[in-house]
């Protein structure tokens, strides 16, 4: 696992620009929390947004260009390769998220936005579903799709806009909460879910975990034929 993780580091699965942006957002977020501890949402949303792009690291697009041949023929089990790719994909975003959370605990007077149930659900969904969907997509496309869904739903106005705004205000209810959690996890940042609301979000989180299992299985079973670079 360690060797596979190191391989993805050397192969630069994450670009320097993305890692630098995440680090910068972490520093800016800590600055925001230092000045106004109650503004945890403002600190956390940009980090989760970048995390959405980071986890969409596109395993198959790189593998079919032969970028992972050295690892895939090293004798490491494919399952280990897949899990290491997931861990490497989510690690930078999770690290910055934990940094913000620690900052919030130290600087804030009460458990704040980063540790709210809605924030944790959003981070969990992005870290699982985002990677799983991104496995089969070109790099970053998962993040683009998530943003497109969010803006399309908000821009459509009417019932969908009202629903999204209600969820962001912590007023969502029923199965639509689970749907919104999957389609627009950004809206959950800072939301304190009541117990009955958590029950509707749990299936979405389970779907995220199951999608990870599906993606690992797909990597284990895949034929990695070589494609010409575009």
């Amino acid at each position: 696992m360690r060797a596979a993780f190191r391989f993805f580091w050397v192969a630069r699965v994450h670009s320097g620009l993305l890692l630098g942006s995440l680090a910068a957002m972490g520093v800016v977020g800590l600055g925001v929390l230092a000045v106004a501890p109650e503004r945890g949402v403002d600190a956390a949303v940009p980090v989760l947004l970048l995390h959405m792009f980071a986890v969409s690291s596109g395993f198959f697009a790189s593998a079919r260009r032969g970028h992972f041949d050295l690892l895939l023929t090293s004798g490491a089990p494919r399952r280990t390769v897949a899990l290491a790719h997931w861990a490497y994909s989510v690690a930078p975003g999770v690290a910055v998220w934990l940094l913000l959370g620690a900052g919030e605990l130290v600087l804030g007077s009460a458990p704040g936005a980063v540790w709210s149930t809605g924030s944790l659900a959003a981070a969990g969904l992005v870290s699982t579903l985002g990677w799983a969907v991104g496995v089969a997509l070109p790099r970053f496309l998962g993040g683009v799709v998530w943003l497109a869904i969010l803006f399309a739903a908000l821009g459509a106005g009417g019932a969908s806009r009202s629903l999204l705004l209600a969820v962001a205000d912590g007023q969502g209810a029923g199965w639509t909460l689970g749907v919104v959690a999957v389609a627009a996890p950004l809206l959950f940042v800072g939301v304190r879910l009541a117990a009955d609301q958590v029950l509707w979000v749990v299936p979405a989180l389970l779907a995220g975990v199951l999608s990870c299992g599906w993606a690992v299985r797909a990597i284990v079973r895949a034929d990695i034929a070589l494609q010409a670079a575009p």
Partner: protein
Amino acid sequence: MSGMTGPCRAPRPVVTMRGVGMAYRRHEVFRDVSVDLAAGRILGVLGPNGSGKTTLLRLMVGLIRARAGQVLVGDRAPTHGMAGAPVAYFGGEATLPGGALAGEWASLCGGERSPDRQRVQSLSRGARQQLGLRTVLSRSPIALIVLDEPWEGLDPDASRWLSRALIARRDEGAAVVLSSHRLHDLAGVCDEYLFLANGTATVVSASHINPGGPVTGEHLMVWFERTRGGAQWSDSWR
């Protein structure tokens, strides 16, 4: 009973392919390919573009699975890169990730980490090819080396280094599989040849191609024309 008094037995092959067929959707690449490659032997794979050389090599290292037949590396199928023997595979400089640092990449198979901070994409094509080759050849131990077009982009000095390195690995007991269009380079190192054309494979030993003498690129060209049943492809080699 001691093996010394019994009949001389051939060493167990490192690579065994039996009736292997491959197709992408409805397009058949090749069929019924059978070959045994023993330790300490070098197999050259020849064929026109699109004949399935790269596919055959990726089958051997378990990156893809055959649609028919059986592939064994050591004593088991190399599914999911888990061959029954340690493998070194390189598919060419285009397969290296451009953002990697050359010095870090070179250390991935146990080689020394060099202070080279250049990104792979900033290296020349030949330098990238050498980096990839040196990295996989630094893996140890290796029972099977599989290289796709290894001489591409190399200058004469680097080509000589590669040929010598492959012969040295063969003499240490590794089985080696090479695909190339550079017939003179192939002829200088291979013990056996697999000609792929028209979806079929023909395996011929060097001693059969030119009994009593070294095989040259011209010999290989003649043999390919013979196995293919036509002469037009040889023009693209000249």
